[in-house]
């Protein structure tokens, strides 16, 4: 078999060669689409807000989706996973819910704006933010984090699990050990990791971990997860109805997950995410191997094009299936435009909402063109992209 999962029926309806999986997965598996439609039709009531049959069916959708996500992510108690609107909300919640003026944090230079912008706001309020520089491949080194953490009292270490620019996988387990040995919390932006790599949160021993639902996990847009270690007291950002708890009380319920889920949940999104999680539970090992094989072909092919510089770990180093490149012959925006218009290839140019990361690898001024493979990608897609870029830059 040469194709990635989903390259069959789902691809027959494709209108382009889609290589922007780092932004969002597409096409969605039919199981995910069916789950979303089912949630909006057969189970369209408000979950947890009533005990009639359809409301219970909706509540069970949410319940089973949370369990599937917990199983996939190695979370022993599903209540420690809160459904949120996306990884950006999860990052905001874990940062703003934990950090207070006077705190000092150590953060990697590869972070996405979902982390750097909340930290900017917090820094204006008195949180000290010290950045640890990653190397030119986008990899953060645990020794550098350790030196930074030991320099001053540190409330938290913040690091992505994988880069949305270079695909580098960060040594989160080692960094978490360093954080904990020095009395700091370990907070992780896992937007690019779950699905594309096996994420075992119990083994990683992190304190908070933000998850995107619509990227590697194949759910619809508008849903994500935040894992919080048992007992970690993170202030909620929103207050409101939760369905359960003592409705007559003025204060927000403090139990999980309701504390972090005020308001009517995104039931269709949650149902779709649950379907994606179940697919990964069933096929994860096989699918990841296929993604990696297709991605290696992409990386090797792009690296061989004259004048192209590919950023990221070496081909034999572990990474998620994302790379960025520049050419000495054409600007990145022009490459992305022409790949789309002439060849029907969907990729993204620019800074990918990660100016810190581009500054780290030296592309802040030029931007880069990013390619990401995932569910539905094929070896033929990759071959077409390599041939197209070769022709464009000839």
């Amino acid at each position, binding site marked *: 078999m040469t194709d990635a999962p989903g390259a069959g029926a789902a691809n027959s309806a494709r209108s382009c060669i889609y290589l922007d999986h780092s932004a969002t997965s597409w096409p969605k598996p039919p199981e995910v689409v069916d789950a979303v439609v089912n949630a909006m039709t057969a189970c369209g009531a408000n979950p947890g807000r009533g*005990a009639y049959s359809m409301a219970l069916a909706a509540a069970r959708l949410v319940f089973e989706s949370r369990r599937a996500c917990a199983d996939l992510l190695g979370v022993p108690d599903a209540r420690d996973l809160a459904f949120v609107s996306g990884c950006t909300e999860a990052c905001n919640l874990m940062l703003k819910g934990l950090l207070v003026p006077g705190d000092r944090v150590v953060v990697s230079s590869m972070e996405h704006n979902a982390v750097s912008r909340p930290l900017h706001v917090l820094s204006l309020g008195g949180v000290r933010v010290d950045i640890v520089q990653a190397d030119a491949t986008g990899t953060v080194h645990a020794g550098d984090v350790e030196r930074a953490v030991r320099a001053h009292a540190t409330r938290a270490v913040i690091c992505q699990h994988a880069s949305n620019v270079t695909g580098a996988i960060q040594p989160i387990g080692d960094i978490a050990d360093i954080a904990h040995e020095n009395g700091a919390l370990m907070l992780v932006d896992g937007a690019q990791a779950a699905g594309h790599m096996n994420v075992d949160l119990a083994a990683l021993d992190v304190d908070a971990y933000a998850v995107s639902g619509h990227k590697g996990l194949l759910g619809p847009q508008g849903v994500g997860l935040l894992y919080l270690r048992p007992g970690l007291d993170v202030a909620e950002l929103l207050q409101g109805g939760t369905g359960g*708890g003592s409705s007559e009380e003025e204060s927000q*319920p403090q*139990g999980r997950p309701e504390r972090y889920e005020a308001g009517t949940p995104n039931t269709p999104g949650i149902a779709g995410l649950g379907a994606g999680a179940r697919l990964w539970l069933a096929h994860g090992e096989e699918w990841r191997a296929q993604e990696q094989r297709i991605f290696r072909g992409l990386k090797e092919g792009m690296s061989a094009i004259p004048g192209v510089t590919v950023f990221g770990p070496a081909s034999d180093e572990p990474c998620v299936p994302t790379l960025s490149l520049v050419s000495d012959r054409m600007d990145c925006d022009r490459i992305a435009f022409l790949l789309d218009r002439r060849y029907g290839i969907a990729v993204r140019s620019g800074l990918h909402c990660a100016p810190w990361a581009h500054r780290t690898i030296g592309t802040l001024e030029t931007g880069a063109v990013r390619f990401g493979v995932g569910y539905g990608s094929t070896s033929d897609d990759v071959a077409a992209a390599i041939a197209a870029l070769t022709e464009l830059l000839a």
Partner: protein
Amino acid sequence: MTPATSRFVAYGFASVHDALAAESALASAGVAVIVIPSPRVLGELCGIALRVDPASARAAESALEVAGLPPRASAEIDDL
């Protein structure tokens, strides 16, 4: 004529998630359970509660204890 009455035991939980987890645990333990709107007597601990036959109450409470989901409140109620 006096209407026939029966009784049931209602269990309340801290959250909808806990109530559904408890329903799953009881089903796995072979205890017949029905999800009901939370009776007022339980103090509105949750929007939903679990209904169990009194004859199964001991087995239910044992199963919930094993599952780590002890009810936050319970009451035996006349089912008129």
